[in-house]
């Protein structure tokens, strides 16, 4: 460790190599798991390594901070690290949203024989119509597509079958009994409660902080329960699955990845809550909590996008 300087450069560390090993084992394990007849053993083993390393890694960082090794400059590095990490997550979701828009706006009408780009020219051309007639005769472009192109051509022999029912928006009057609406309410509220907790911490009101952060974690948990509920509803009652053509694909991949991020965010907040109970954080030093809360706001914003583009605009 270079004690001469002000910036804390940690000594040699065994953490990263274990983390890299964990990731390598997980990657290899995941690939052999999805193969025909594969098992999850290697993957789980890798995850165990990874979990242990992460636990140790964060304990050490927290400990370093408590020992006063983390200068304001180092903390700024952590801040930048977290913000750019969130940016990379934004781009990950952008990829899936982009896929949704492309498929929904362009591909769907192309397969259905309508012409190219609406903004420039939406009169069906003979070529487009002939094309569709040749490739997917009988397919009609609607969103969500209840009958896949495959079904339009092959009927019951089709590999991809559309859902029986879509996750339709019941209209604003029906929202009260519509699960996605309540999910939105829960998540937006939690963004607010985490903010209240933050303000409380800055005011030095630890009790209030613990309470509101606890509520936030609870809301995150409720969201996840509702989401599971919704998936069960989709699979069992609507016949809407991951395999129901492009609608099921985009629906479950977008909401699924969002759900995974909510899970991660909830765990992050839960850890911060436990730390708060242990007396970590002070009025002017609370990075761990702040990072988790930024993440939480991000997850929230993604949900708003999902609510609009996946749920409402059907």
């Amino acid at each position, binding site marked *: 460790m270079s004690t*001469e300087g002000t910036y804390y450069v940690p000594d040699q560390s065994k953490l990263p190599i274990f983390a890299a090993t964990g990731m390598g084992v997980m990657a290899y394990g995941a690939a052999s798991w999805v193969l025909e007849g594969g098992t999850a053993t290697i993957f789980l083993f890798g995850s165990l390594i990874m979990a242990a390393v992460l636990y140790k890694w964060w304990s050490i960082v927290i400990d370093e901070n408590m020992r006063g090794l983390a200068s304001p*400059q180092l903390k700024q590095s952590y801040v930048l690290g977290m913000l750019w990490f969130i940016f990379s997550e934004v*781009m990950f979701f952008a990829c899936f949203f982009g896929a949704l828009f492309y498929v929904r706006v362009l591909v769907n009408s192309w397969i259905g024989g309508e012409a190219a780009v609406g903004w420039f020219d939406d009169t069906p051309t003979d070529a487009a119509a002939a094309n569709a007639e040749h490739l997917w005769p009988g397919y009609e472009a609607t969103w969500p597509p209840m009958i896949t192109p495959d079904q339009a051509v092959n009927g019951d022999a089709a590999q991809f079958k559309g859902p029986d029912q879509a996750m339709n928006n019941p209209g604003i009057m029906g929202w009260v009994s519509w699960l996605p609406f309540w999910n939105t309410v829960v998540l937006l509220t939690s963004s607010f409660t985490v903010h209240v907790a933050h303000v409380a911490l800055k005011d030095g009101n630890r009790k209030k902080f613990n309470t509101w952060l606890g509520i936030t974690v609870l809301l995150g948990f409720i969201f996840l329960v509702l989401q599971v509920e919704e998936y069960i509803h989709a699979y069992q009652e609507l016949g809407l699955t991951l395999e129901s053509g492009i609608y099921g694909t985009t629906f479950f991949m977008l909401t699924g990845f969002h759900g995974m991020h909510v899970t991660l965010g909830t765990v992050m907040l839960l850890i911060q809550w436990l730390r708060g109970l242990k007396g970590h954080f002070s009025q002017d030093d609370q990075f761990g909590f702040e990072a988790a809360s930024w993440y939480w706001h991000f997850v929230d914003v993604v949900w708003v996008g999902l609510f609009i583009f996946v749920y409402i605009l059907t």
Partner: protein
Amino acid sequence: MAHGPATLADGWGKYISRWVFTTNHKDIGTLYLWFSFAMFIMGGAFAMIIRAELFQPGMQLIKPEFFNQMTTMHGLVMVFGAIMPAFVGLANWLIPMMIGAPDMALPRMNNLSFWILPFAFAILTSTLFMEGGGPNFGWTFYAPLSTTYAPDTVNYFIFGVHIMGASSIMGSINIIATVMNMRAPGMTYMKMPLFVWTWVITAFLLVAVMPVLAGAVTMMLMDINFGTSFFDAAGGGDPVLFQHIFWFFGHPEVYIIILPAFGVVSQIIPTFSRKPLFGYSSMVYATAAIAFLSFVVWAHHMFTVGMPIAGELYFMYATMLIAVPTGVKVFNWITTMYRGSLTFETPMLFSIAFVILFTFGGFTGMMLSIAAADMQYHDTYFVVAHFHYVMVAGAVFSGTAAVYYWLPKWCGRMYDETMGKVQFWIAFIGFNITFMPQHFLGLAGMPRRYADYGLQFADWNMVSSIGAFMYGGAQILFLFNVIRTIGWGKPTDDPQVWEGAEGLEWTVPTPAPYHTFATPPKVK
């Protein structure tokens, strides 16, 4: 810390743990550079196999199935294993020294970013020995080749790419945090050396597009194993969607490869011209402009896929726009040399060759960007020639130049100038013999990625293969020269090393001590 890093004299155990557990930016830079060179040799071996098979028409040495694996692995290994890590290695070594920082902002994460790579590439190359063979769908892994028709091992490829991407993202975040947060007092943004500027913009590109690549392979994974239909029109998806996503990543990726190379030559040319870089701020703005444009031109790789005419036109004009900031750069390099007192040491030779050959590659790029003409050029050897001019004579030449330029600073020993120059000329001539004829082949209609070809293409293919072996040989000389320098080169302790060199890295002792700038310098 009083004592220096462990050396072999401290015993193997200590020596190995130094490299495995290190948090030092110089050690990690060295690791990256050696890893990259190892991958370069491996990818190069694949290329030699390809060129040996193409030496004559007909099938001589390998089976077509294996040929496909070789072209795919060659591309993947060179792009992700050789070129990208080489520049990350340079970034690690140089950025802290150039901005007066004690180390990278997040040293432990830095170590993690590196050590993921050996795992990722072990997973990727291990597929070559598995049943079904390695990936055989081209480095661009278009669906449905990489989904419906892929070998089972594609899953290893997918997860290998995942962790490789994680490594890149962490590495880039580290670079961004270092540049934004660790500059010495007085080192304002507009005083940063160009290498730092180009890297921080590259890092931004990486953080923006590596997640998109992760998205692409995730969609593949789901389509292959879990019945989704992203890339299958039968379910309402579209294989072309894959191409859009891939190239939204892929085009910025080519600039991720070339921007640090721009940075390197922008350091070297002023030194050996003994003049400051001409048009510093325009260089910075041009870099930023290129980075921005690189997000909005991706479908120039897809002119033949059946886009609406509006798309063809838009992507054609947008692509052509890139020539403007690129032209600014070429102009500035040339103007820096104009009326300078030039000397032609090996790094300078490689840099001048860079300027000439990269510009040539840029011109063929302009030809390709004409949508109507690309109907003819697309997926022929003309494209192969284009991107090897920008990637090999561009990125690889500049990487070689960088090693020769900074090696004396790193290890306190001079390389053998004669050997360096010999290597340069073999590489320069070999490179052009390899790839110049590929333009002719492409224009005459020879398609890329086939194990065999029509007899009318025989002559130029043989020439191309001879050049390739020559170029390959030059790399052996390079390796030899580097090892010789580190072990037995003429010692030097001149901090500046090169007469015209400017910048903070040339103010620290030679060889650079293990820790530099523990207390930040003051920059006027």
